[in-house]
Protein backbone atom coordinates (compact mmCIF):
# COMPACT_ATOMS: atom_id res chain seq x y z
CA UNK A 1 0.00 0.00 0.00
CA UNK A 2 2.86 2.32 0.87
CA UNK A 3 4.27 2.27 -2.65
CA UNK A 4 0.92 3.28 -4.10
CA UNK A 5 0.79 6.18 -1.69
CA UNK A 6 4.18 7.38 -2.93
CA UNK A 7 3.11 7.05 -6.57
CA UNK A 8 0.11 9.10 -5.65
CA UNK A 9 2.21 11.73 -3.90
CA UNK A 10 4.74 12.07 -6.72
CA UNK A 11 2.05 12.60 -9.35
CA UNK A 12 0.06 14.88 -7.11
CA UNK A 13 2.98 17.18 -6.33
CA UNK A 14 4.10 17.20 -9.96
CA UNK A 15 0.60 18.23 -10.98
CA UNK A 16 0.64 21.12 -8.52
CA UNK A 17 3.59 22.71 -10.33
CA UNK A 18 1.56 24.05 -13.21
CA UNK A 19 0.17 27.12 -11.51
CA UNK A 20 0.17 29.64 -14.35
CA UNK A 21 -1.63 27.11 -16.49
CA UNK A 22 -4.12 26.65 -13.68
CA UNK A 23 -4.91 30.38 -13.56
CA UNK A 24 -5.41 30.49 -17.29
CA UNK A 25 -7.61 27.43 -16.90
CA UNK A 26 -9.66 29.03 -14.18
CA UNK A 27 -10.42 32.11 -16.27
CA UNK A 28 -11.21 29.97 -19.31
CA UNK A 29 -13.56 27.78 -17.35
CA UNK A 30 -15.19 30.74 -15.76
CA UNK A 31 -16.04 32.32 -19.09
CA UNK A 32 -17.15 28.93 -20.38
CA UNK A 33 -19.53 28.46 -17.47
CA UNK A 34 -20.85 31.96 -17.95
CA UNK A 35 -21.56 31.41 -21.65
CA UNK A 36 -23.26 28.08 -20.94
CA UNK A 37 -25.55 29.76 -18.44
CA UNK A 38 -26.40 32.49 -20.96
CA UNK A 39 -27.18 29.82 -23.53
CA UNK A 40 -29.56 27.98 -21.24
CA UNK A 41 -31.08 31.26 -20.14
CA UNK A 42 -32.03 31.93 -23.75
CA UNK A 43 -33.88 28.60 -23.84
CA UNK A 44 -35.38 29.22 -20.43
CA UNK A 45 -36.76 32.62 -21.40
CA UNK A 46 -38.16 31.21 -24.63
CA UNK A 47 -40.30 28.62 -22.86
CA UNK A 48 -39.83 28.37 -19.09
CA UNK A 49 -42.46 25.64 -18.84
CA UNK A 50 -40.32 23.16 -20.75
CA UNK A 51 -37.37 23.53 -18.41
CA UNK A 52 -36.84 20.17 -16.69
CA UNK A 53 -35.31 21.62 -13.53
CA UNK A 54 -35.18 24.91 -11.72
CA UNK A 55 -32.87 27.45 -13.27
CA UNK A 56 -30.83 27.83 -10.09
CA UNK A 57 -30.31 24.04 -10.06
CA UNK A 58 -29.00 24.18 -13.59
CA UNK A 59 -26.64 27.06 -12.74
CA UNK A 60 -25.35 25.04 -9.79
CA UNK A 61 -24.81 22.04 -12.06
CA UNK A 62 -22.91 24.10 -14.64
CA UNK A 63 -20.67 25.76 -12.06
CA UNK A 64 -19.85 22.46 -10.37
CA UNK A 65 -19.05 21.11 -13.80
CA UNK A 66 -16.57 23.91 -14.47
CA UNK A 67 -15.06 23.78 -10.99
CA UNK A 68 -14.48 20.03 -11.12
CA UNK A 69 -13.58 19.86 -14.78
CA UNK A 70 -10.13 18.56 -13.86
CA UNK A 71 -11.73 15.67 -12.04
CA UNK A 72 -14.17 14.58 -14.72
CA UNK A 73 -12.59 15.56 -18.02
CA UNK A 74 -12.91 12.41 -20.04
CA UNK A 75 -10.42 13.43 -22.69
CA UNK A 76 -7.54 13.56 -20.27
CA UNK A 77 -5.40 10.44 -20.40
CA UNK A 78 -1.93 10.24 -18.93
CA UNK A 79 0.41 10.84 -21.89
CA UNK A 80 3.23 9.10 -20.02
CA UNK A 81 1.34 5.85 -19.87
CA UNK A 82 0.31 5.93 -23.52
CA UNK A 83 3.84 6.90 -24.46
CA UNK A 84 5.27 3.99 -22.47
CA UNK A 85 3.13 1.56 -24.44
CA UNK A 86 4.16 2.95 -27.83
CA UNK A 87 7.82 3.44 -26.96
CA UNK A 88 8.23 0.12 -25.19
CA UNK A 89 9.27 1.74 -21.92
CA UNK A 90 6.51 -0.34 -20.40
CA UNK A 91 9.08 -3.16 -20.25
CA UNK A 92 10.68 -1.43 -17.26
CA UNK A 93 7.38 -1.03 -15.56
CA UNK A 94 6.68 -4.69 -16.00
CA UNK A 95 9.91 -5.52 -14.15
CA UNK A 96 8.81 -3.61 -11.09
CA UNK A 97 7.31 -5.48 -8.18
CA UNK A 98 4.03 -3.61 -8.39
CA UNK A 99 0.69 -4.29 -9.84
CA UNK A 100 0.50 -2.16 -12.99
CA UNK A 101 -3.24 -1.73 -12.77
CA UNK A 102 -2.95 -0.38 -9.25
CA UNK A 103 -0.05 1.87 -10.15
CA UNK A 104 -1.69 3.41 -13.19
CA UNK A 105 -4.96 3.79 -11.37
CA UNK A 106 -3.36 5.70 -8.48
CA UNK A 107 -1.35 7.90 -10.83
CA UNK A 108 -4.46 8.82 -12.76
CA UNK A 109 -6.47 9.69 -9.70
CA UNK A 110 -3.54 11.76 -8.40
CA UNK A 111 -3.28 13.86 -11.58
CA UNK A 112 -6.99 14.48 -11.67
CA UNK A 113 -7.04 15.46 -8.02
CA UNK A 114 -4.08 17.84 -8.29
CA UNK A 115 -5.65 19.61 -11.25
CA UNK A 116 -8.90 19.99 -9.39
CA UNK A 117 -7.33 21.24 -6.19
CA UNK A 118 -5.66 24.10 -8.05
CA UNK A 119 -8.71 25.08 -10.01
CA UNK A 120 -11.88 24.41 -8.10
CA UNK A 121 -11.67 26.92 -5.26
CA UNK A 122 -11.57 30.20 -7.20
CA UNK A 123 -14.44 29.07 -9.42
CA UNK A 124 -16.56 27.84 -6.53
CA UNK A 125 -15.93 31.07 -4.61
CA UNK A 126 -16.88 33.41 -7.43
CA UNK A 127 -19.85 31.27 -8.42
CA UNK A 128 -21.11 31.31 -4.84
CA UNK A 129 -21.24 35.10 -4.84
CA UNK A 130 -23.05 35.48 -8.16
CA UNK A 131 -26.64 36.70 -7.88
CA UNK A 132 -29.32 34.03 -7.79
CA UNK A 133 -30.40 32.21 -9.97
CA UNK A 134 -27.12 32.45 -11.90
CA UNK A 135 -24.78 31.43 -9.12
CA UNK A 136 -24.00 28.31 -7.15
CA UNK A 137 -26.28 28.03 -4.14
CA UNK A 138 -25.69 25.99 -1.00
CA UNK A 139 -26.28 22.23 -1.25
CA UNK A 140 -29.87 21.07 -1.04
CA UNK A 141 -29.34 19.79 2.52
CA UNK A 142 -26.81 18.31 4.91
CA UNK A 143 -27.61 14.77 3.82
CA UNK A 144 -27.39 15.82 0.16
CA UNK A 145 -23.96 17.27 0.80
CA UNK A 146 -22.66 14.10 2.47
CA UNK A 147 -24.00 11.97 -0.38
CA UNK A 148 -22.48 14.44 -2.86
CA UNK A 149 -19.00 14.00 -1.38
CA UNK A 150 -19.27 10.20 -1.41
CA UNK A 151 -20.65 10.27 -4.93
CA UNK A 152 -17.82 12.54 -6.15
CA UNK A 153 -15.23 10.00 -5.08
CA UNK A 154 -17.13 7.17 -6.70
CA UNK A 155 -17.57 9.22 -9.87
CA UNK A 156 -13.82 9.74 -10.12
CA UNK A 157 -13.28 6.01 -9.51
CA UNK A 158 -15.75 5.02 -12.25
CA UNK A 159 -14.16 7.40 -14.75
CA UNK A 160 -10.65 6.23 -13.91
CA UNK A 161 -11.70 2.59 -14.21
CA UNK A 162 -13.11 3.46 -17.60
CA UNK A 163 -9.89 5.16 -18.74
CA UNK A 164 -7.98 2.07 -17.63
CA UNK A 165 -9.92 0.14 -20.27
CA UNK A 166 -8.65 2.63 -22.86
CA UNK A 167 -5.07 2.18 -21.68
CA UNK A 168 -5.37 -1.59 -21.89
CA UNK A 169 -6.88 -1.33 -25.36
CA UNK A 170 -3.77 0.57 -26.45
CA UNK A 171 -1.81 -2.69 -26.02
CA UNK A 172 -3.73 -4.05 -28.97
CA UNK A 173 -3.52 -1.17 -31.42
CA UNK A 174 -0.61 0.57 -33.07
CA UNK A 175 -2.12 3.99 -32.64
CA UNK A 176 -4.74 4.31 -29.94
CA UNK A 177 -5.91 7.73 -31.10
CA UNK A 178 -8.95 6.37 -32.89
CA UNK A 179 -10.35 4.36 -30.00
CA UNK A 180 -9.57 7.19 -27.65
CA UNK A 181 -11.53 9.74 -29.64
CA UNK A 182 -14.49 7.38 -29.93
CA UNK A 183 -14.53 6.43 -26.25
CA UNK A 184 -14.11 9.99 -25.11
CA UNK A 185 -16.90 11.37 -27.26
CA UNK A 186 -19.22 8.65 -25.97
CA UNK A 187 -18.38 9.51 -22.36
CA UNK A 188 -18.77 13.24 -22.97
CA UNK A 189 -22.15 12.85 -24.56
CA UNK A 190 -23.75 10.24 -22.33
CA UNK A 191 -22.35 11.53 -19.04
CA UNK A 192 -24.11 14.84 -19.36
CA UNK A 193 -20.97 16.87 -19.99
CA UNK A 194 -22.42 18.47 -23.13
CA UNK A 195 -25.98 18.91 -21.97
CA UNK A 196 -27.13 17.74 -18.53
CA UNK A 197 -29.00 14.44 -18.53
CA UNK A 198 -32.33 15.98 -17.40
CA UNK A 199 -32.47 17.77 -20.77
CA UNK A 200 -32.50 14.54 -22.76
CA UNK A 201 -35.86 13.15 -23.98
CA UNK A 202 -37.61 11.14 -21.27
CA UNK A 203 -37.20 7.71 -22.87
CA UNK A 204 -33.45 8.24 -23.25
CA UNK A 205 -33.10 9.56 -19.73
CA UNK A 206 -34.22 6.27 -18.21
CA UNK A 207 -31.62 4.34 -20.19
CA UNK A 208 -28.85 6.89 -19.65
CA UNK A 209 -29.35 6.88 -15.91
CA UNK A 210 -28.59 3.16 -15.80
CA UNK A 211 -25.46 3.37 -17.97
CA UNK A 212 -22.07 3.77 -16.30
CA UNK A 213 -21.64 7.22 -17.87
CA UNK A 214 -24.29 8.80 -15.64
CA UNK A 215 -22.34 7.52 -12.65
CA UNK A 216 -19.45 9.85 -13.48
CA UNK A 217 -20.42 13.49 -13.02
CA UNK A 218 -24.16 13.61 -13.42
CA UNK A 219 -25.00 11.72 -10.23
CA UNK A 220 -22.92 13.77 -7.76
CA UNK A 221 -23.85 17.14 -9.29
CA UNK A 222 -27.56 16.38 -9.43
CA UNK A 223 -27.45 15.20 -5.83
CA UNK A 224 -25.82 18.46 -4.79
CA UNK A 225 -28.38 20.70 -6.45
CA UNK A 226 -31.22 18.60 -5.09
CA UNK A 227 -32.56 17.33 -8.41
CA UNK A 228 -31.94 13.83 -7.08
CA UNK A 229 -33.43 13.70 -3.55
CA UNK A 230 -31.31 11.95 -0.87
CA UNK A 231 -33.68 8.96 -0.78
CA UNK A 232 -32.98 8.27 -4.45
CA UNK A 233 -29.38 9.35 -4.12
CA UNK A 234 -28.51 6.29 -2.07
CA UNK A 235 -29.72 3.99 -4.86
CA UNK A 236 -27.69 5.97 -7.39
CA UNK A 237 -24.60 5.68 -5.24
CA UNK A 238 -25.12 1.91 -5.04
CA UNK A 239 -25.29 1.93 -8.83
CA UNK A 240 -22.01 3.87 -8.99
CA UNK A 241 -20.43 1.31 -6.70
CA UNK A 242 -21.73 -1.48 -8.93
CA UNK A 243 -20.35 0.08 -12.09
CA UNK A 244 -17.02 0.69 -10.45
CA UNK A 245 -16.85 -2.96 -9.44
CA UNK A 246 -17.75 -4.15 -12.95
CA UNK A 247 -15.43 -1.77 -14.82
CA UNK A 248 -12.44 -2.36 -12.59
CA UNK A 249 -12.95 -6.15 -12.64
CA UNK A 250 -13.07 -6.14 -16.44
CA UNK A 251 -10.01 -3.89 -16.51
CA UNK A 252 -7.96 -6.06 -14.19
CA UNK A 253 -8.85 -9.28 -16.00
CA UNK A 254 -8.35 -7.82 -19.46
CA UNK A 255 -5.01 -6.37 -18.45
CA UNK A 256 -3.86 -9.71 -17.01
CA UNK A 257 -4.80 -11.44 -20.24
CA UNK A 258 -3.14 -8.79 -22.40
CA UNK A 259 0.06 -8.76 -20.37
CA UNK A 260 0.43 -12.50 -20.72
CA UNK A 261 0.80 -12.03 -24.45
CA UNK A 262 2.46 -8.65 -24.57
CA UNK A 263 5.38 -8.40 -26.97
CA UNK A 264 7.74 -5.50 -26.47
CA UNK A 265 9.34 -4.85 -29.80
CA UNK A 266 13.13 -4.66 -29.78
CA UNK A 267 15.04 -1.47 -29.20
Amino acid at each position, binding site marked *: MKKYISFFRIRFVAGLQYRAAAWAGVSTQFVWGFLSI*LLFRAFYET*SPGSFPMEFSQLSGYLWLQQAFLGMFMAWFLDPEILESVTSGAIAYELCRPVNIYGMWFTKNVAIRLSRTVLRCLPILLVAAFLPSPYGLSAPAGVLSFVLFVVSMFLGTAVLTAFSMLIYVSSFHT*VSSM*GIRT*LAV*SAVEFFSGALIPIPFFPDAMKTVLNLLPFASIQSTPFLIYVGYIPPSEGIARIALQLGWFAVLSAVGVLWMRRSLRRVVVQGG
Partner: protein
Amino acid sequence: MNLYFKYLGILFKSRMQYKASFFMQSLGHFIIAFTGFAGMYFLFDRFHAVRGYTFQNVLLCFSVVTFAFSIAECFVRGFDSFPSLIRSGELDRILIRPRSVVFQVLTSRMEFTRVGRFLTATVVFIWAIPRCGVDWTFGKVAILLLMILGGVAVFSALFMIYAGFSFFTVEGLEFMNIFTDGTKEFGRYPLSIYGKELLLFYTFLIPIAPFQYYPFLYLIGHSDRVWYGLLPLAGALFLIPAYAFFRFGLKRYVSTGS
Protein backbone atom coordinates in the same frame (compact mmCIF):
# COMPACT_ATOMS: atom_id res chain seq x y z
CA MET B 1 1.40 28.13 -54.97
CA ASN B 2 2.81 25.13 -56.75
CA LEU B 3 5.06 24.48 -53.82
CA TYR B 4 2.07 24.70 -51.50
CA PHE B 5 0.30 21.90 -53.32
CA LYS B 6 3.45 19.87 -53.30
CA TYR B 7 3.65 20.18 -49.50
CA LEU B 8 -0.04 19.38 -49.28
CA GLY B 9 0.53 16.23 -51.29
CA ILE B 10 3.46 15.12 -49.18
CA LEU B 11 1.67 15.70 -45.89
CA PHE B 12 -1.35 13.86 -47.18
CA LYS B 13 0.70 10.90 -48.34
CA SER B 14 2.54 10.65 -45.05
CA ARG B 15 -0.77 10.72 -43.20
CA MET B 16 -2.06 7.95 -45.42
CA GLN B 17 0.68 5.65 -44.21
CA TYR B 18 -1.48 5.00 -41.17
CA LYS B 19 -4.78 4.48 -42.91
CA ALA B 20 -6.68 2.70 -40.16
CA SER B 21 -5.74 5.28 -37.61
CA PHE B 22 -6.65 8.05 -40.04
CA PHE B 23 -10.12 6.69 -40.63
CA MET B 24 -10.71 5.99 -36.97
CA GLN B 25 -9.71 9.53 -36.07
CA SER B 26 -11.82 11.06 -38.80
CA LEU B 27 -14.73 8.98 -37.59
CA GLY B 28 -13.99 10.22 -34.10
CA HIS B 29 -14.17 13.83 -35.22
CA PHE B 30 -17.34 13.10 -37.12
CA ILE B 31 -18.88 11.68 -33.97
CA ILE B 32 -17.67 14.51 -31.74
CA ALA B 33 -19.21 17.09 -34.03
CA PHE B 34 -22.28 14.92 -34.39
CA THR B 35 -22.84 14.68 -30.64
CA GLY B 36 -22.82 18.48 -30.66
CA PHE B 37 -25.59 18.35 -33.23
CA ALA B 38 -27.49 15.71 -31.25
CA GLY B 39 -27.27 17.87 -28.14
CA MET B 40 -28.87 20.73 -30.07
CA TYR B 41 -31.49 18.41 -31.44
CA PHE B 42 -32.53 17.31 -27.94
CA LEU B 43 -32.66 20.89 -26.70
CA PHE B 44 -34.89 21.93 -29.60
CA ASP B 45 -36.97 18.81 -29.20
CA ARG B 46 -37.83 20.13 -25.76
CA PHE B 47 -37.98 23.89 -26.40
CA HIS B 48 -38.86 24.04 -30.16
CA ALA B 49 -37.29 27.49 -30.61
CA VAL B 50 -34.86 29.88 -29.01
CA ARG B 51 -35.59 33.60 -28.97
CA GLY B 52 -37.54 33.42 -32.21
CA TYR B 53 -35.16 31.18 -34.12
CA THR B 54 -36.30 27.73 -35.17
CA PHE B 55 -34.11 24.64 -35.13
CA GLN B 56 -33.72 24.80 -38.91
CA ASN B 57 -32.60 28.45 -38.70
CA VAL B 58 -30.04 27.63 -36.08
CA LEU B 59 -28.71 24.69 -38.08
CA LEU B 60 -27.59 27.19 -40.69
CA CYS B 61 -25.37 28.81 -38.04
CA PHE B 62 -24.20 25.40 -36.93
CA SER B 63 -23.09 24.36 -40.37
CA VAL B 64 -21.42 27.66 -41.24
CA VAL B 65 -19.38 27.68 -38.03
CA THR B 66 -18.55 23.98 -38.24
CA PHE B 67 -17.50 24.26 -41.89
CA ALA B 68 -15.32 27.27 -41.21
CA PHE B 69 -13.74 25.77 -38.11
CA SER B 70 -12.96 22.44 -39.72
CA ILE B 71 -11.38 24.05 -42.77
CA ALA B 72 -9.32 26.42 -40.65
CA GLU B 73 -8.26 23.61 -38.32
CA CYS B 74 -7.18 21.47 -41.24
CA PHE B 75 -5.11 24.01 -43.16
CA VAL B 76 -3.99 26.41 -40.47
CA ARG B 77 -3.08 23.67 -38.01
CA GLY B 78 0.54 24.83 -38.19
CA PHE B 79 -0.36 27.95 -36.21
CA ASP B 80 -2.57 26.02 -33.87
CA SER B 81 0.37 23.82 -32.90
CA PHE B 82 2.90 26.65 -33.11
CA PRO B 83 4.21 26.38 -29.52
CA SER B 84 5.61 22.96 -30.40
CA LEU B 85 7.54 24.51 -33.31
CA ILE B 86 9.17 26.91 -30.88
CA ARG B 87 9.86 24.28 -28.25
CA SER B 88 11.43 21.86 -30.71
CA GLY B 89 13.60 24.55 -32.31
CA GLU B 90 11.95 23.84 -35.65
CA LEU B 91 11.22 27.55 -35.96
CA ASP B 92 14.96 28.32 -36.21
CA ARG B 93 15.18 26.09 -39.25
CA ILE B 94 12.17 27.83 -40.74
CA LEU B 95 13.72 31.26 -40.22
CA ILE B 96 16.84 30.49 -42.21
CA ARG B 97 15.00 29.25 -45.26
CA PRO B 98 14.32 31.66 -48.12
CA ARG B 99 10.54 31.49 -47.94
CA SER B 100 8.03 33.46 -45.92
CA VAL B 101 7.51 32.32 -42.35
CA VAL B 102 3.75 32.18 -42.65
CA PHE B 103 3.98 29.96 -45.70
CA GLN B 104 6.29 27.52 -43.96
CA VAL B 105 4.26 27.41 -40.79
CA LEU B 106 1.17 26.68 -42.85
CA THR B 107 2.89 23.84 -44.62
CA SER B 108 4.55 22.44 -41.51
CA ARG B 109 1.44 20.58 -40.48
CA MET B 110 -2.04 19.87 -41.68
CA GLU B 111 -4.72 17.92 -39.94
CA PHE B 112 -6.66 15.96 -42.50
CA THR B 113 -8.65 14.03 -39.92
CA ARG B 114 -10.80 17.13 -39.52
CA VAL B 115 -12.55 15.90 -42.62
CA GLY B 116 -14.76 14.14 -40.07
CA ARG B 117 -16.03 17.41 -38.66
CA PHE B 118 -16.43 18.73 -42.19
CA LEU B 119 -18.57 15.71 -42.99
CA THR B 120 -20.87 16.39 -40.06
CA ALA B 121 -21.33 19.95 -41.25
CA THR B 122 -22.10 18.67 -44.74
CA VAL B 123 -24.71 16.18 -43.53
CA VAL B 124 -26.41 18.73 -41.30
CA PHE B 125 -26.23 21.27 -44.08
CA ILE B 126 -27.84 19.04 -46.69
CA TRP B 127 -30.59 18.22 -44.24
CA ALA B 128 -31.12 21.84 -43.23
CA ILE B 129 -30.94 23.55 -46.65
CA PRO B 130 -34.42 22.65 -47.92
CA ARG B 131 -35.96 23.08 -44.46
CA CYS B 132 -34.51 26.36 -43.24
CA GLY B 133 -37.05 28.48 -45.04
CA VAL B 134 -34.63 30.37 -47.25
CA ASP B 135 -35.52 30.57 -50.92
CA TRP B 136 -32.12 30.16 -52.43
CA THR B 137 -31.12 32.57 -55.13
CA PHE B 138 -27.71 32.90 -56.68
CA GLY B 139 -26.96 35.88 -54.46
CA LYS B 140 -27.88 34.03 -51.30
CA VAL B 141 -25.67 31.09 -52.16
CA ALA B 142 -22.85 33.56 -52.72
CA ILE B 143 -23.50 35.09 -49.30
CA LEU B 144 -23.41 31.65 -47.73
CA LEU B 145 -20.04 30.95 -49.32
CA LEU B 146 -18.80 34.32 -48.12
CA MET B 147 -19.92 33.46 -44.61
CA ILE B 148 -17.90 30.26 -44.64
CA LEU B 149 -14.83 31.94 -46.13
CA GLY B 150 -15.12 34.82 -43.68
CA GLY B 151 -15.29 32.28 -40.89
CA VAL B 152 -12.17 30.53 -42.11
CA ALA B 153 -10.39 33.89 -42.15
CA VAL B 154 -11.47 34.78 -38.61
CA PHE B 155 -10.54 31.37 -37.19
CA SER B 156 -7.19 31.51 -38.97
CA ALA B 157 -6.59 34.95 -37.48
CA LEU B 158 -7.39 33.56 -34.02
CA PHE B 159 -4.91 30.72 -34.50
CA MET B 160 -2.34 33.28 -35.62
CA ILE B 161 -2.89 35.37 -32.51
CA TYR B 162 -2.53 32.24 -30.45
CA ALA B 163 0.81 31.58 -32.15
CA GLY B 164 1.80 35.19 -31.53
CA PHE B 165 1.18 34.80 -27.82
CA SER B 166 3.37 31.75 -27.67
CA PHE B 167 6.40 33.97 -28.37
CA PHE B 168 5.89 35.55 -24.98
CA THR B 169 4.73 32.69 -22.83
CA VAL B 170 4.41 28.99 -23.22
CA GLU B 171 2.08 28.65 -20.31
CA GLY B 172 -1.33 30.08 -19.83
CA LEU B 173 -2.31 29.95 -23.46
CA GLU B 174 -5.37 27.99 -22.48
CA PHE B 175 -7.47 31.14 -22.32
CA MET B 176 -7.31 31.42 -26.12
CA ASN B 177 -9.55 28.35 -26.15
CA ILE B 178 -12.44 30.57 -25.19
CA PHE B 179 -12.17 32.22 -28.58
CA THR B 180 -11.39 29.21 -30.74
CA ASP B 181 -13.15 26.25 -29.13
CA GLY B 182 -15.60 28.58 -27.44
CA THR B 183 -16.68 30.04 -30.76
CA LYS B 184 -16.96 26.59 -32.23
CA GLU B 185 -19.27 25.54 -29.37
CA PHE B 186 -21.29 28.65 -28.67
CA GLY B 187 -21.24 29.96 -32.24
CA ARG B 188 -23.62 27.16 -33.18
CA TYR B 189 -26.39 29.44 -32.05
CA PRO B 190 -27.08 32.93 -33.40
CA LEU B 191 -24.89 35.15 -31.25
CA SER B 192 -27.70 37.49 -30.25
CA ILE B 193 -29.25 34.91 -27.91
CA TYR B 194 -26.47 35.54 -25.40
CA GLY B 195 -27.48 39.13 -24.92
CA LYS B 196 -26.60 42.50 -26.34
CA GLU B 197 -23.23 43.01 -24.64
CA LEU B 198 -21.80 39.78 -25.97
CA LEU B 199 -23.09 40.53 -29.43
CA LEU B 200 -21.23 43.85 -29.37
CA PHE B 201 -18.10 42.10 -28.13
CA TYR B 202 -18.33 39.55 -30.91
CA THR B 203 -18.97 42.23 -33.49
CA PHE B 204 -16.19 44.69 -32.79
CA LEU B 205 -13.51 42.95 -30.75
CA ILE B 206 -13.58 39.39 -32.01
CA PRO B 207 -15.49 39.61 -35.28
CA ILE B 208 -17.50 36.40 -35.15
CA ALA B 209 -20.89 38.06 -35.66
CA PRO B 210 -19.96 39.63 -39.03
CA PHE B 211 -19.75 36.20 -40.61
CA GLN B 212 -22.10 34.23 -38.39
CA TYR B 213 -24.92 36.52 -37.31
CA TYR B 214 -25.66 39.51 -39.57
CA PRO B 215 -25.58 37.71 -42.93
CA PHE B 216 -27.60 34.93 -41.29
CA LEU B 217 -30.30 37.45 -40.38
CA TYR B 218 -30.52 38.47 -44.00
CA LEU B 219 -30.63 34.88 -45.24
CA ILE B 220 -33.49 33.79 -43.01
CA GLY B 221 -35.38 36.99 -43.77
CA HIS B 222 -35.20 38.59 -40.32
CA SER B 223 -33.57 41.59 -41.92
CA ASP B 224 -33.74 43.00 -45.43
CA ARG B 225 -30.41 44.77 -45.43
CA VAL B 226 -28.53 43.24 -48.31
CA TRP B 227 -25.24 44.78 -47.21
CA TYR B 228 -25.29 42.48 -44.19
CA GLY B 229 -24.29 39.82 -46.68
CA LEU B 230 -21.02 41.59 -47.32
CA LEU B 231 -20.00 41.84 -43.68
CA PRO B 232 -17.98 38.60 -43.72
CA LEU B 233 -15.48 40.52 -45.83
CA ALA B 234 -15.17 43.12 -43.09
CA GLY B 235 -14.66 40.35 -40.55
CA ALA B 236 -11.87 38.93 -42.66
CA LEU B 237 -9.98 42.19 -42.12
CA PHE B 238 -9.29 40.77 -38.66
CA LEU B 239 -6.44 38.90 -40.35
CA ILE B 240 -4.49 42.16 -40.58
CA PRO B 241 -4.11 42.92 -36.85
CA ALA B 242 -3.60 39.20 -36.24
CA TYR B 243 -0.75 39.10 -38.72
CA ALA B 244 0.72 42.31 -37.31
CA PHE B 245 0.65 40.79 -33.85
CA PHE B 246 2.34 37.65 -35.09
CA ARG B 247 5.10 39.73 -36.74
CA PHE B 248 5.46 41.72 -33.54
CA GLY B 249 6.04 38.52 -31.58
CA LEU B 250 8.37 37.13 -34.21
CA LYS B 251 10.59 40.21 -33.95
CA ARG B 252 11.04 39.55 -30.26
CA TYR B 253 11.70 35.88 -30.74
CA VAL B 254 14.72 34.50 -28.97
CA SER B 255 15.54 30.92 -29.80
CA THR B 256 15.32 28.33 -27.06
CA GLY B 257 18.66 27.12 -28.28
CA SER B 258 17.74 23.48 -28.64
